[in-house]
């Protein structure tokens, strides 16, 4: 695939143009990436495509090599690996809380102790998810103003 970049005057709006023959997985990935940079994620639910705003996202969970995004009431599938999504959202208040999950810190109402040194996070929709002990030090660091 040929890549072309062009410097433009500040008076013109910045844009990304993708020229394609067919929407392949590769093209879709590029589209998803560009949209995610604009605060939206391209997802699928019941065979239909949806654009989910990052700010509506509560958490993402990887299940059997498939990645699901959860908003207040709905879930969507996204064609991405968890670590890729984590990398994409790391400066948007998302943090890894277990081997298979990242959470939006802005959607946590409170944290309480669970069994064996773990904590659970109560989300704004009432859902409860486990914060693994291994990721607690990183969480503390971020909340104290450390870098993602």
């Amino acid at each position: 695939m040929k890549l072309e970049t062009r410097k433009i005057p500040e008076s013109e709006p910045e844009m990304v143009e993708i020229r394609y023959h067919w929407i392949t997985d590769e093209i879709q990935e590029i589209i998803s990436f560009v949209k995610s940079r604009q605060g939206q994620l391209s997802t699928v639910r019941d065979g239909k495509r949806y654009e989910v705003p990052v700010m509506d996202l509560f958490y993402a969970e990887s299940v059997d090599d498939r990645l699901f995004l959860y908003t207040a009431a709905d879930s969507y599938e996204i064609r991405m690996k968890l670590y890729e999504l984590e990398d994409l959202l790391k400066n948007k208040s998302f943090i890894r809380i277990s081997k298979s999950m990242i959470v939006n810190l802005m959607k946590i109402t409170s944290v309480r102790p669970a069994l064996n040194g773990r904590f659970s996070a109560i989300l704004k929709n009432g859902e409860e998810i486990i914060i693994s002990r291994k990721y607690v030090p990183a969480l503390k660091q971020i909340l104290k103003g450390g870098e993602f």
Partner: protein
Amino acid sequence: MKRQKWKELLIHTLRLYTLLVTLITVLMIILGNLLDRGRVFSYDAFFSPLVYALIGTVATVITRSDQELSVRSLIIRKTISLLLIEGAVIFIALNADTIPTDKRWVVPALALGVFIVFVLSHIILYFIDKKEAEKLNADLSRYQEKQMNSSPINE
């Protein structure tokens, strides 16, 4: 991050050890007064809570796992840990001259005492975690407030 992980493990281990020394000392005072009131010990007796607490701490640390265990696996692991401690303490008690295991109630009382210390230590550690959660919640509120004021992404 690895350094932080080891630091957390060290703090957890020391906290558990100190807690166990305290609880075992209290247990020995209670059991001793109830079952073997007249016995006189040498200064060596002061080592006993330290040794028993070490057994409890080692048994807990070696059965500790960084894997994300289900509640069922966690209960199994805790049960194994308790059985290891019970076994080690009773083995030492049966081989120690200072503990009158020939008396009828001593071994069951010791086993029950170990169980009580095990449960109590977990309850106390839960309250320590609760305190930590309160701190996390305060930091979380501050973080969210700061982000709301600075970022248009999450509202």
